[in-house]
């Protein structure tokens, strides 16, 4: 009997942790050196998706204007072609004090912005962008958008370095 209790005591948390790990966790890490604050907020994707599902549909649905929706198949085909294309730098903009670079490496689009010392790095897996793109009808729900982060597993999707040393990262595990 004791063995059963022990197995249960180990298995239940293990299954809970395993389920959370299997469905994904978004970790938001915020460092503010001036204030000495450091927050780490892990959000299980399944929980975020469940929470999003409770929000009234009318509040979470994003309706794409009809004119823009007609270009969605174009965007989808272009993204699919981009995924299959060779790696390389797609866009580079340089102005005094500002730099923007978008480059493709394997299945990921790396967007780097340096705006007068403030640095923003965003990594978007192309599969993530494809899954967020609405299908015909041009509508996407918040719940779908949250679930799309499944395609960004093991990726630091956002890294923002402020001028005053603030540092924010969002990583999907």
């Amino acid at each position, binding site marked *: 009997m004791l063995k*059963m209790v022990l197995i249960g005591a180990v298995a239940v948390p293990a299954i809970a942790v395993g389920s959370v790990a299997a469905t994904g966790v978004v970790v938001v890490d915020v460092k503010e050196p001036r204030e000495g604050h450091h927050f780490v907020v892990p959000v299980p994707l399944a929980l975020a998706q469940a929470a999003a599902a409770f929000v009234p549909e009318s509040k979470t649905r994003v309706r794409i204007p009809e004119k823009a929706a007609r270009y969605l198949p174009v965007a989808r085909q272009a993204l699919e*072609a981009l995924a299959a294309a*060779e790696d390389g*730098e797609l866009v*580079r*903009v340089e102005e*005094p004090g500002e730099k923007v670079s978008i480059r493709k490496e*394997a299945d990921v689009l790396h967007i780097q912005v340096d705006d007068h010392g403030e640095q923003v790095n965003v990594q978007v*897996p192309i599969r993530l962008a494809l899954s967020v793109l609405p299908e015909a009808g041009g509508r996407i729900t918040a719940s779908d958008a949250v679930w799309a982060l499944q395609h960004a597993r093991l990726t630091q999707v956002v890294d923002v370095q402020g001028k005053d040393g603030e540092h924010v990262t969002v990583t999907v595990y």
Partner: protein
Amino acid sequence: MERVRTGRGLALAAGGALLLAASAGAAAPGGSPAPGRGAWVHVRVEEEGRGSKVAVNLPISVVDAALQAAPETIAADGHIHLGRYGHDRHDLSVADLRRAWAELKSSGDAEFVSVEDDDETVKISRAGGLVLVHVEKPSGKESVRVEVPIEVVDALLSAQGDELNVRAAFAELQKRRGDIVRVHDENSTVRIWIDEAN
């Protein structure tokens, strides 16, 4: 019986561990299929006054995909509907352009158009396999140079009636390597070309 239950628990734990490993494996960034070397369209815009530089490099397959999927109102089956421009006396339909092109093409290397006025000089000529459009300001500070392969013009005009076959023209343009457009003025330069460098 207890041993059986314990074994089942271990099996569940092992199964869970396998599921975790499998999900982690599925989530790990996989290697993309090794694509063949393709052509890239490059656009460079430099503005010396502002100190700005813009570089856009797009795989030709991406441009092609966008063109293939273009909505009907912009390109229906690869044709753009033009019709006639307004009602003034200088209308030029695509059908007229097609007839003129057929005659010009048969004349070999020649200067088709040369317009010189106080503001600028415009020359359109054929040199070998290229149609050259050259616009220049007298000061020499501004110039536009466009080079279009003859096959691209042929493909563009290969549709019927007042339609341009943009898709066929782009298919031909994909074979081009080198400059397509160069614009240079006092403050900026623009260059568009195709090569296989990414």
